[in-house]
């Protein structure tokens, strides 16, 4: 019975939460391919979630092209120094956005140089943007090319949701039933 004047016939106001919902949203994230400068060409947005061919150069992959970090990665020597067999675990933060992506990139990169098996704990994520998902996807592909293993463990609802919205859940192997899409 909150915030309604008594004269109203509406006793309980289901929209009240809107007033309290924090206005925070990720300021700017990478535009989804094609959403900004759509008009230009249709090949630019071809198959941007469909790239599964891991043998191909990242540079040929239209989807990661606009990702500077992906280039940095692809430029790394694909034959890495000998590394540990032990697995290494990296936890994603609650908020994974554009601001955090550079740091995450550094952590993933050094993990990749250290070990053959990286577990990414995604249980805490409750906000994740397209740049982070792109980074994870490129990371996974890079690791596969180097015969390393990356698994994303305990993905939170929000993580799964974001991945499935972007059609990436299969590629990131965090698929779950279509039920509960929302």
């Amino acid at each position, binding site marked *: 019975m909150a915030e309604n004047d008594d004269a109203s016939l509406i006793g309980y106001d289901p929209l009240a*939460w809107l007033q309290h919902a924090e206005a925070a949203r990720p300021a700017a994230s990478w535009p*989804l391919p*094609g959403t900004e400068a759509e008009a230009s060409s249709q090949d630019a947005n071809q198959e941007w979630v469909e790239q599964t061919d891991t043998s191909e150069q990242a540079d040929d992959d239209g989807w990661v092209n606009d990702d500077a970090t992906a280039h940095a990665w692809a430029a790394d020597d694909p034959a890495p120094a000998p590394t540990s067999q032990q697995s290494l675990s990296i936890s994603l933060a609650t908020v994974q956005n554009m601001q955090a992506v550079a740091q995450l990139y550094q952590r993933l990169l050094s993990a990749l140089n250290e070990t053959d098996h990286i577990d990414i704990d995604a249980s805490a994520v409750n906000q994740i*943007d397209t740049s982070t998902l792109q980074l994870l996807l490129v990371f996974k592909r890079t690791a596969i090319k180097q015969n390393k293993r990356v698994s994303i463990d305990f993905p939170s609802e929000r993580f799964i949701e974001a991945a499935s919205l972007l059609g990436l859940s*299969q590629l990131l192997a965090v698929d779950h039933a279509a039920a509960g899409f929302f």
Partner: protein
Amino acid sequence: MKPRIVAVLNQKGGVGKTTTCVNLAHALAKLGKPVTVIDLDPQHHLAVALGEVAVDRSGIDAVMLGERSLQEQMLSVRPCLSLVVAGPRLQAIEQLSEGGSHRGDLLRRGLAACPWLDQAVVLIDCPPSSGILVANALFAVDELLVPMTSDFMALQGLSHLMGTLKKFEQVLAKNYRTTLVMSRYISNRRLSEDVLTTIKKYFPNQVLRTLIRETALLAECPSFGKTIFEYRPGCRSAQDFASLAVDFIEGRVM
């Protein structure tokens, strides 16, 4: 120029999405604005309401599955008004048995590939669900039109819808331009006024100025495959929609 692409959306059924699409589209067409309506509901009520009943004709389903271009699927159904029907495989896309797993960008890609020629407005009639089809619509557009009834449960539904939209806005890092239309307004009723007051409180300057009133004629015309302008030109519902079209173009809100 790229047209205004607007998803007519509310996960609640029976709120007037299809009625709004059909009659707003025809009203815009009558103002000389070239309009395309896309039936994204596997129940294809939009096509039926426009008198297009061939159920096995392919439509937006084939566009989403990458087999046809949108232009190929546009049927000219009235002067200045084109229709893209749902097509028999849209249901399969909703159930994810076609088009690959979790593909949210099928519609966006179909629209992006379209040259649009002189189209001014594209209205997408969404299904009453919140599955992959609605996700596709949310992926594809920047603008939403939310039809609302004037009862308490509609507020509840709107609350749920806003929660969903916030998730999408967060994940897609976009900010929808959202307007609402009172699509089945029951006049002379206290509750209607109270609901409207509540909505205006949360959506200032976002409710289109014209109230579409609940009338028998509007409920009748779909069964004849006619818009209100054909079924009973000049009636007050026709006037409501003509006025709503101007609101829509000029951004007149309350």
